[in-house]
Structures are given as structure tokens and as C-alpha cells.
């Protein structure tokens, strides 16, 4: 049971909802909700902080902009898109959540995401853990040398860095080179076995992009552009990001 009645003023209108609607692609609609609850019944974030996707959307429809854009649920939803996948009206609730994140003052957004985004902006590796071009190249070379020296049959294993004209430019999550470098080796072996022509780049190698999760459009764009330039500078044909 709801113990408090929500009072809506006659003229109250959701500026937030209209803004989100205006950026949705053609056919996007936030008013077509049938309140059927399919979104909430299949959402793992339902119930966290007494919130769920249907409630979130209804709050937007009722113009409860302030409550909506300050509720931490925007950071508990992972924008996994299962709600829109299940929705008979294809209502883009994740887009609403993304814009709710964007409504938070930058310095009030979760510290871990903020710090990871800002760290990635510091150098062209785009590493959220701050690993530099030199760090990355050293770790890859060091791990490769050990495999070649100790694993029988893998003396010719390669982990190319900055190989111009390679078919694939491969990104790598920072966690591997920084905290568990041996986890990179199985991937190299698979690429070797299938004869893939691939390379890492010292610039733009980090796969993660916390600026996207932070809903910081400018920083997100910057990260993507740095990586894109790295792929193009090496004249690679395919950019592989395993995130």
C-alpha cells in the first residue's frame, strides 16, 4: 500500500520527460506506457531503493522531475535494455535513466565512476586505471617473453604492438595488464591458432569507457575519438573491443 498520496499540481509538466523525448529516434515514445509492468517484472533492479522501471517512467509522466533526477536508482539501473526488450510499446526507459544520470552535478556523480573517467582523460591510452603507453608495452612484452621461454610449442607466439596495417586492432581491459597479466595469454594463443593478423596500439588500447557510464557526453566522445584515431593511424581494418 502507498501510505502517502502524491499530489500533482494542475500545471505541472515534465520538462525532463519532454527533453528526453526530443532526443529519442523516430518512433520513440514515453507516453505510450500501458502500465502493464512487464518492464519491472523482469528487471533485476526492481525493488532497489523502493524503485522500479515502471515507477521511474510514471514519475516522469507525472512531472516529478526533481525526485527523478536526484534518486540514486539512476546508478542502480545498469541500462541493460531488458525492459525495452520486453516492453510491448518499446519505451526507452534506459534512455530516461541515462539522462537522469546526466542531470546530476558532475562532482556529485559516483566517485568511482568519476575517478575512472577522469583518469582515462589524462593520457591517450584511455586507461581508467592510469596505465601509460610505456607500462602497457612493457607488460605485454614481459609476459610474451616468459611464455616463449617456458611453454613448449609457443616459441613463436606473438603479441604485436603498433603493427601498421594489421587486420584487427584489439582493445584490452586495463584490469589484465595492471592486475592479472597472465589472463591476456589465452586470448593471444587463440588469435595465433586461427592465424589472425592483429595488433595492440600503445595509444587507445584500453577497452573500458567510464565516461559513457558517467553520462558525460563530451568526455565519452573524446575517449571514443582518441581510440578511433589510434585505429586509423595504424591503418587497421577492424576495431575489436571486447567490452
Amino acid at each position: 500500500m502507498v501510505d502517502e498520496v502524491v499530489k500533482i499540481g494542475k500545471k505541472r509538466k515534465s520538462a525532463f520527460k519532454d527533453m528526453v523525448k526530443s532526443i529519442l529516434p523516430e518512433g520513440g515514445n514515453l507516453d505510450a506506457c500501458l502500465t502493464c509492468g512487464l518492464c519491472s517484472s523482469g528487471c533485476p533492479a526492481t525493488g532497489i531503493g523502493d524503485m522500479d522501471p515502471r515507477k521511474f517512467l510514471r514519475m516522469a509522466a507525472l512531472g516529478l522531475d526533481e525526485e527523478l533526477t536526484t534518486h540514486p536508482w539512476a546508478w542502480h539501473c545498469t541500462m541493460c535494455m531488458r525492459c525495452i526488450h520486453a516492453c510491448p510499446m518499446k519505451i526507452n526507459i534506459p534512455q530516461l535513466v541515462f539522462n537522469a544520470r546526466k542531470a546530476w552535478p558532475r562532482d556529485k556523480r559516483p566517485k568511482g565512476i568519476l575517478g575512472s573517467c577522469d583518469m582515462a582523460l589524462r593520457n591517450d591510452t584511455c586507461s581508467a586505471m592510469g596505465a601509460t603507453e610505456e607500462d602497457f608495452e612493457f607488460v605485454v612484452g614481459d609476459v610474451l617473453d616468459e611464455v616463449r621461454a617456458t611453454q613448449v610449442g609457443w616459441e613463436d607466439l606473438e603479441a604485436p604492438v603498433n603493427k601498421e596495417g594489421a587486420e584487427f586492432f584489439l582493445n584490452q581491459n586495463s584490469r589484465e595488464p595492471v592486475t592479472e597479466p597472465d589472463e591476456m595469454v589465452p586470448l593471444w594463443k587463440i588469435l595465433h591458432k586461427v592465424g589472425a593478423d592483429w595488433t595492440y596500439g600503445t595509444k587507445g588500447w584500453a577497452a573500458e569507457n567510464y565516461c559513457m557510464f558517467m553520462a558525460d557526453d563530451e568526455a565519452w566522445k573524446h575517449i571514443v575519438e582518441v581510440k578511433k584515431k589510434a585505429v586509423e593511424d595504424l591503418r587497421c581494418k577492424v576495431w575489436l573491443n571486447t567490452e
Partner: protein
Amino acid sequence: MQDPCQLVRKTFGDPVADDLRFVVKAVVGEENYIDMTPNKSNNYCCGGGGGFLQSGFPDERRQYGKLKDDQIKATGATYCITPCHNCHAQVHDLSEHYGGHYNVVHLWTLICLSMGCLGPNERTYLGEDLAELLMPEVREEEE
């Protein structure tokens, strides 16, 4: 196997989920594979996406992941394969936090294990039952 949201529902849909199953079954054997329910495009997010692992809400993140943990436990499987980085970190944490203690492995680990080329330092996430299986030949490093 966890279906990564980004790869499956948000990008390539059920065809890539079928491709993943083809690879996994080829690697572990059809009789050793069991799907969780629901699956493919209808599978649930593990709770590691969207920056949740870094956002400083561990209680909420695990509350979110309870559904995933229940889904995995219901299969009775002793290994969960996570072909995504965030999924691996989150599901591994769920396995420990909720006491299921199923093993959580990257897909690349099982592919190399089945090809007989998974080196001794590349077995961090294998359980005791597979830890020594198909160990390739190694030699002492020359100083």
C-alpha cells in the same frame, strides 16, 4: 553461460548467443552444457554493467545480482562461463558472496584448456577438478 547484455541483447541478438553456445558445446561437450533460464536475449543482466562495479554501491549491486545467482544455482552447474569482463568480475563476486562457490571462468580459458594449451599461470579461475587437466609441457626459464 551468462549472455553478456552488450554482446547479445544490445548488439547482435540471438544469433550471436547461438554462436556462443556452439563454441561452448564444442569445448565442454554437449552433455556437459546446461542453459540457465531465461537465456539469450531474455537473460538477465548480472549487475556488473553500466559502471555498477565502480559506483560504490556494493549492497545494491549484490541485491541486483541475487537474481543472477539464483538463476545459476538453479542449473546445478559447477562452472559459469562469462564471455564478458564485467560479467566475470560480478558473477565471481556473487559466487563468493552468496556462498554458491561455483567457478566463474572466461571463455578464453575454456577454449585454451580444451585445445591443450592453457599454461600453468593461466588457470586462476579453474576449480580443483580441472586445475591439472591437460597441462601442457613447460620448461624451466633460462636465467
